[in-house]
Every structure is written in C-alpha cells, then in structure tokens.
C-alpha cells in the first residue's frame, strides 16, 4: 500500500496540492480524476519523487520514500509521464532494456534479457523491436514506454495521462493492458485520467481532486453518480447503464 500523508506543494504562495491524504490499495487500478489544474499530475509526481513535496510524507509498504535509496525505490515504484523527451535515437528494444537498469546498471544478464523479451511480447512489440522510436506512431510509442515500465517489474506502476493524444482504439488497447497487468500479474496501477468514462469502466477505485484537495475517494461505483460528479466538475452529468458499464453522458450537459 502507498500511503500519502498531509502532502502539500506550493508554487509561490499558491497551493497546488494541499494536505492530501490518500491510500493506494494493492492489486487495484486507482484513477485520479478532476478538472484541469486540480493537482493530479503534481500529486503523482510527488508520490514518485519526481518533484519534492513541501510538507507531508509518502510511505511505500511502510517505508518512507525519502529514506529509501533511489535504486531500491525504482525496483518498487515506476512512473511514466505524459511527454517523454529523448535526446538520443533508440530502438524499441534498447528502450525496453533500459527498464532493467535498476537491477543491472546497464549490463544485462540472461535473466534481464528474458524479462525484456517478455515485456515486448506482452505489449505486442516483438515484430518491430528493432524499429526506431522516432519512426513510430503515438500508440506504438506509448506501448514501447509501457513495455519499459513492465520490464522494470515494479509492484506499483504510476501513469500520468497515458491516453493523451491516442485514438479510441489505442486508448482501449492500453487500458485493457493495464487491466491485465493488475488481474494477471498482481500489479498495482495508479493512473491520471481525463476521460471520466475510462475511469468508470476500467478502475477499481477513484480519487477525485479539485483545487489541490481530495474531494472524493472511494470505490468506482460510489464516485460515478450524478451527485458526486456535480461536486467534482460543477456539471450535471446523467449516468446511463450500458453493457454493464456506467457511462457518463457529459457531452451536452
């Protein structure tokens, strides 16, 4: 379990995240939702120590994040940000191999190679493993980065808006893969999502943020109802049940 305690972040005097307390449960998909500027990405970045919190603490399986060595931390928690700027030209295989860096420090043994192959197989990238990253489409790139995170083999996988700029088909593909990671491999996934319906259909728990605070935190069924959504988004959103999914019809509300 990841425990977030009284976490705050200020830019100047403005609190972007203010006294947030959240528990992230093992073996579940937890979605962070909320309007733009609610502090979702900042919260995720603090949990994964990409940025330092101003106050509060984060515990991963009872360990203080700041007392863990960065190498140890990277074997337990991985983070994938929305934009991944690279200064070098890499093939998919080289990128996925970097996922083993916390274990191998760059010198891959046969076990590492096996895990790299497995990760590429899992993401359906074996045919194009020698293609260069800059020649891929958005969906293929995103899959390659997720394959790297899978090769990193952490219990917790944090993703910051992985569906950005992806079309419907690829979005669904990515979400199904994340679901499989949780159901088949017992991983814990935390994901920042903009589309409330993906959160509704695929996640186990939802944490809703607004103005840097947690306004709702609970099981998906508890959050996806018109009253709760009104509080989060200030919109009247009717909910329809189709194919056993709760779909929020927000387009003309």
């Amino acid at each position, binding site marked *: 379990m990841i425990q977030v305690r009284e976490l705050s972040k200020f830019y100047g005097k403005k609190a972007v995240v203010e006294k947030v307390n959240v528990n992230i449960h093992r073996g579940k998909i937890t979605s962070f939702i909320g309007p733009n500027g609610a502090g979702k990405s900042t919260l995720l970045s603090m949990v994964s120590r990409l940025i330092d919190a101003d106050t509060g603490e984060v515990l991963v399986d009872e360990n203080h994040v700041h007392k863990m060595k*960065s190498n140890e931390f990277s074997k337990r928690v991985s983070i994938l940000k929305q934009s991944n700027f690279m200064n070098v030209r*890499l093939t998919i295989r080289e990128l996925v191999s970097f996922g083993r*860096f916390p274990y191998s420090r760059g010198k891959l043994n046969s076990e590492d190679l096996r895990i790299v192959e497995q990760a590429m197989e899992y993401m359906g990238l074996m045919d194009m493993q020698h293609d260069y990253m800059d020649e891929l489409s958005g969906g293929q790139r995103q899959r390659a980065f997720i394959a790297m995170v899978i090769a990193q083999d952490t219990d917790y996988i944090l993703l910051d808006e992985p569906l950005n700029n992806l079309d419907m088909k690829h979005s669904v593909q990515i979400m199904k893969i994340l679901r499989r990671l949780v159901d088949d491999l017992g991983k814990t996934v935390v994901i920042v999502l903009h589309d409330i319906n993906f959160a509704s259909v695929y996640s186990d728990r939802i944490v809703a943020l607004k103005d840097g605070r947690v306004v709702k935190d609970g099981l998906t069924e508890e959050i996806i109802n018109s009253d709760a959504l009104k509080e989060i988004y200030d919109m009247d959103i009717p909910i329809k049940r189709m194919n056993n999914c709760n779909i929020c019809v927000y387009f003309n509300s």
Partner: protein
Amino acid sequence: MRNSTKLIILSVFAAVFCAVYLFHDLNGSFDYALPRRGIKVIAMALTGVAIAYSTVIFQTITHNRILTPSIMGLDSLYLLLQTVVIFFLGSNHITIVNKHVNFILSVSTMVVFALILYRFLFKRGGQPIYFLLLVGIIVGTFFGSISTFLQVLIDPNEFMRVQDKMFASFNNVSGELVWWALGIVILTFIIGWRAFNDLDVLSLGRDTAINLGVSYDRVVKMMLVISAVLISVSTALVGPITFFGLIVANLSYQFFKTYKHSVLIAGASVMSIIALVGGQWVVERIFTFSTTLSVIINFVGGVYFIYLLLKESRST
C-alpha cells in the same frame, strides 16, 4: 561496421598521426627535438581528451547538443583574468611570467567560479537547467565585455601579451605542467567512470532517469564539477579553443550513433587527438607557422556550428 571496430580504426589513425608528428623530419635529433615534440603531443592529446570528455558529459546533463562548457562563461573568465592581471600588474608580473603560478591561478579561479555559479543555482532549488545555461551565457558576455573594455585602454605592448593568451597555442607548453594536468584528467576519469552508465540513462530525460533509479541531482552536480575542472585545466594549459568541443562531440554522435557514453567519450577523445595532432602537423609543416591551429579550428568549428543551428531549426 561495429562501434568497437570503428574505435580501433580511429585509434590506429591517432597513433599514426602521433608517430608522424614525432618522427617526421627528425634528422636523428633524438635528444633535443624528440622530448620537446613528445611533450607537445602529450599536451595536445590531454587537451583533446579533456575537451571531448567535458563537452560530451556537459551536453548530456544539459540535454542539448549545441552549447558547450566553454560557452558557459569559462573561456571568457579566463581571458578576463589574464587581461585584468596584465592591466593592473603589468605583463612582467610573476602571475604572467611564471607559468606555474599562472596555471594554478587560472584553474582555481575558473573552478571556484563554476562552483559558485552551480551552488548558487542549485541552492535556490528547482531551477531548470536552462536557467543555468542562460545565466552562464549572460555572465560570459559580461566578462567578455569587461575584457574588451580593458584591452582598449591597455598599453599596446601589453596588449600584445593579452593577445598571446587569446588564442590557444601548443608551441610553448611547459613540460612540468603537462604532468600535473595529466594527473588531474586521469583523476576525473577515475571519479566519473562509474557514472557513465547513469549518463546513458540521463539522455532519456530527467523524469525517466529518476524513474530508473538514478540519483539525478547528485550525478548532475558531479558531472558539472568534472566538466568545469576539465575545461579549466585545458584552457589554463593551452588557452581557449571555443568551438573545438562542439565539433568533436557532434562528430562522435554522428559517427557512432549510440547512447553509450563509454563509446561516445572514447570516440570523441580519439577524434580530438587526430584533429589536434594532425592539425598541428599541418600548421607546422605546410603553413610553416603562418597561422595557428586554434584559428583553423575556430574557423571550421564556427562553420559547423552554423550548420548545426540551421539543421536544428529545420527539424523542429
């Protein structure tokens, strides 16, 4: 062709150039000419390796392929220091005449300057690396302007001495200093060697590097200090060669097409040796000292710099 093959071929070329430089037209002068040429070759190899190494690591940690540590104000600080000393103390003062004193003064000033700059910027915390670059360039321009101002006021004979310092020269390098510089460069390799793998990950960007367990701040600080020390040593030894690092680092990226820093740094270092030793031989034998190597390097490098800028602006 595999990268190890490429490295071996380049190394052979470098060795051939060194041998030609050492033994061509020696006329049996083993006692007099050979040791003098030997010191020059070592000084050139040392400068080349220091510039190549510092430029590659600097460009990786700053995520760019155009700016070099020299541009960060270190070259202009060196010139300012020399100008100020000559302006106020005269060209016959011990700090100019005695090469050891001058070397130690230059290295320590540049390293202290770099450390203050980095410390100031890191202490504020959370400053993006671009802010560091911007401050470095502004400070460099500031130093350059003061130097120019003092050079305008200076006595013409004294200005000749300043001018000597403005261009890199391998012709009167002190033998003893070369060994000191060699020791420092070897030390930076011993310290930096273990972090080469971390550098490979740093080229994936800050977020990915931290995700993969690299202690980002620690590695970046260590590499900035190493690059400052290396540039200071090479500049204090032979003088500023502004565009040289840019050429060899980018040639190495293009030639090796890899992310592995052990290969990139080795490649850039060998290319530097070829360029400096080969270039110096051409200057001595073909141009018969009618020009200096740094003038040629800055000419070629400047053209290459413009080419890189145009290429970058097209690709984005």
